[in-house]
């Protein structure tokens, strides 16, 4: 059965800290891995990763994929209170179906 496991489930840090969120997956028909940020209701897209070892970066956020070891990490540097959210990892199969992990709840304290 395809699955995504995220860790840690929750994390509390202070502003300015750097955090690393983990996502491991098992899938028979992998095509791409995606990260989303969910603040209130609707998740919003952060990154799509398809190739191993190529870092994607957007401001203080970056992510990388390891297709051999079947995991991805999301890094956030110099965290701010506005980074507080649930971070969801998902993979797409070749057919376009998505499977999501349970998310990591990040709380950034002032």
């Amino acid at each position, binding site marked *: 059965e395809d699955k*995504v496991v*995220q860790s840690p489930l929750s994390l509390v840090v202070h502003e300015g800290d750097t955090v690393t969120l983990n996502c491991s997956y098992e899938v028979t028909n992998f*095509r*791409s891995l*995606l990260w989303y940020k969910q603040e209130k*209701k*609707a*998740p*919003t*897209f952060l990154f*799509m990763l*398809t190739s191993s070892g190529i870092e994607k970066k957007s401001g203080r956020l970056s992510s990388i994929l390891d297709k051999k070891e079947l995991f991805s990490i999301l890094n956030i540097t110099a965290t701010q209170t506005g980074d507080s959210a649930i971070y*969801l990892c*998902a993979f*797409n*199969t*070749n*057919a*376009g*179906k*998505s*499977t*999501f*992990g*349970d*998310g990591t709840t990040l709380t950034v304290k002032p």
Partner: protein
Amino acid sequence: GAGVSQSPSNKVTEKGKDVELRCDPISGHTALYWYRQSLGQGLEFLIYFQGNSAPDKSGLPSDRFSAERTGGSVSTLTIQRTQQEDSAVYLCASSLGGAWYEQYFGPGTRLTVT
């Protein structure tokens, strides 16, 4: 442009009643997804429509759940004979289709079964 919209935003129903949840995807998006999210949980896949292909219904939890997509656009998720365990936020998403595109999510419908 307009994003994904869902209605109603909140629905309270009595156990045993049927409910219909609506999703209007982004214009031009061929793929449409329904997910369910219980408190503190991730997104549980329910059903996936891609163009004119037969939908992937593999995530529907029981035969009380069904979904339609009319004209390749608007979708309705129907839950018959609702149970308390159906209480959750139901999220709809759309994308340009296939594995190479990210999904755009609607604001969700919070369903409460009393």
